[in-house]
């Protein structure tokens, strides 16, 4: 590509310009700049246009829907049950009505996937996990909480301390509406201070246990403690981030 003696048409009266190299370099440099500054560019786009419009642009603010099993478990609001068991004083099965009758927590947070995509300004609403644990009564000897999904494949875990963080919720509303099936509805976990894989979808059960049981993604190589700042210790050294 660098050779000027093209050999194709050496007797041509016209001088040849290596457009190929220039365009090739231009495109790859643009790509590199995008990798380096795309994150900030998206932030600017998001703040100028609002996340709604930025979501329509390619690259920005779009949920990538993951599921382990390849299909979504469909559970109606009416048939939904959340079973809380394990080292608790009062094992309880919650219905949707039960959950909605509990103290409500709502906030707006960025949903950040460990692979890089994120959706800013997502509205969340639900019950603090801490309230549910208080309701059932955690027994002495309990160390961690394990979560099960209606997809019968995904599992997750949090230490008891993590489970009591104020922005760890059992969510029934997301993006200003009931959580849709593809987002893990009718009820999902939302662990705001950690990467998205910790926020298990189609939450079916909460078990209070005596040790941390690494969940599906952790068994597949992801850190058990996936704090958004990239640290992986049991406690977040920079709680201000949440």
């Amino acid at each position, binding site marked *: *590509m660098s*050779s000027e003696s*093209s*050999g*194709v*048409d050496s007797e*041509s009266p*016209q*001088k*040849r*310009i*290596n*457009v*190929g*190299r220039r*365009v*090739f370099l*231009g*495109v*790859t440099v643009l*790509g590199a700049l*995008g*990798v*380096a*500054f*795309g*994150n*900030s*560019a*998206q932030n600017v786009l998001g703040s100028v246009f609002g996340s709604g419009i930025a979501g329509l642009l*390619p*690259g*920005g603010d*779009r*949920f*990538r*829907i*993951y*599921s*382990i*099993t*390849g*299909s*979504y478990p469909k559970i109606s609001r009416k048939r939904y049950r959340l079973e809380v068991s394990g080292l608790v004083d009062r094992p309880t099965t919650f219905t949707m009505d039960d959950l909605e009758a509990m103290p409500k927590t709502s906030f707006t947070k960025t949903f*950040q996937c*460990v*692979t*890089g*995509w*994120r959706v800013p300004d997502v509205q969340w609403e639900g019950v603090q996990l801490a309230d549910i644990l208080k309701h059932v009564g955690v027994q002495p000897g309990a160390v961690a909480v394990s979560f099960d999904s209606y997809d019968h494949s995904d599992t997750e875990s949090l230490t008891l301390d993590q489970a009591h963080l104020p922005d760890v919720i059992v969510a029934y509303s997301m993006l200003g509406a009931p959580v849709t099936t*593809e987002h893990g509805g009718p009820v999902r976990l939302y662990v705001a201070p950690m990467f998205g894989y910790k926020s298990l979808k189609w939450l079916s059960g909460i078990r209070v246990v005596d040790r941390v049981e690494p969940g599906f993604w952790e068994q597949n190589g992801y850190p058990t403690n996936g704090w*958004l700042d*990239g640290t992986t210790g049991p406690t977040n050294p920079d709680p201000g981030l949440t």
Partner: protein
Amino acid sequence: MSITDAPAKTLRLLRFNRVQRAAHWANATLFFILIFTAIPLYFGSFFGVVLPRHLIEQIHLWTGLSLALPVIISLVGPWGEAMRQDVRRINFWTRDELEWLRTAGKSPLDADKFNPGQKLNAIFVGASIPVMLVTGSMLQWFRFFPVSIRSGATFVHDIFAWLIFIVVVGHIIMALTHREALRSIFGGRVTESWAKRHAGRWLKEQRQRELTIEGVPKT
């Protein structure tokens, strides 16, 4: 019979040899698999309809990793001379070609084997392959990169995916509306009358070469 009065309707001129045709179709197949697997990965709601997401992801990953192979293999070996020559043609432009592109095809042009639009298409697709390969690898092996870089790689991978999709659709539309050019990517050859209309400079070159190198025209 002299070369100049060979019947204009005969498919006489070799535009793409076997290696180039094989490389094109291998490349096209990989691009199609990538586009079709990208759709459910990008628009989450489609997935699960045909294959589980994990499987789609694996197909997309391995197809992506092998995307550069047809181009590289067809270029490197002793079989790659025609391919290498076409890469040089595509890279080196005359002032007329630049002008033709600037005026969107209105300025006069004694066209090369490929017109400036085709050349630009080839360069862009060629440059996109390493961009997609690098950003895609960053998404797959994200642990080695800080989160803001992962986000940047996602951003670039998405935008280039859209650009490539648009370019590929344009390429297909052009192919379907230019039947004789299309036929040459299957059979390899074009007629002289086609070359006269679409690749005048190349036709002259070919004639010159046949006269000087082979002495006698092929029939």
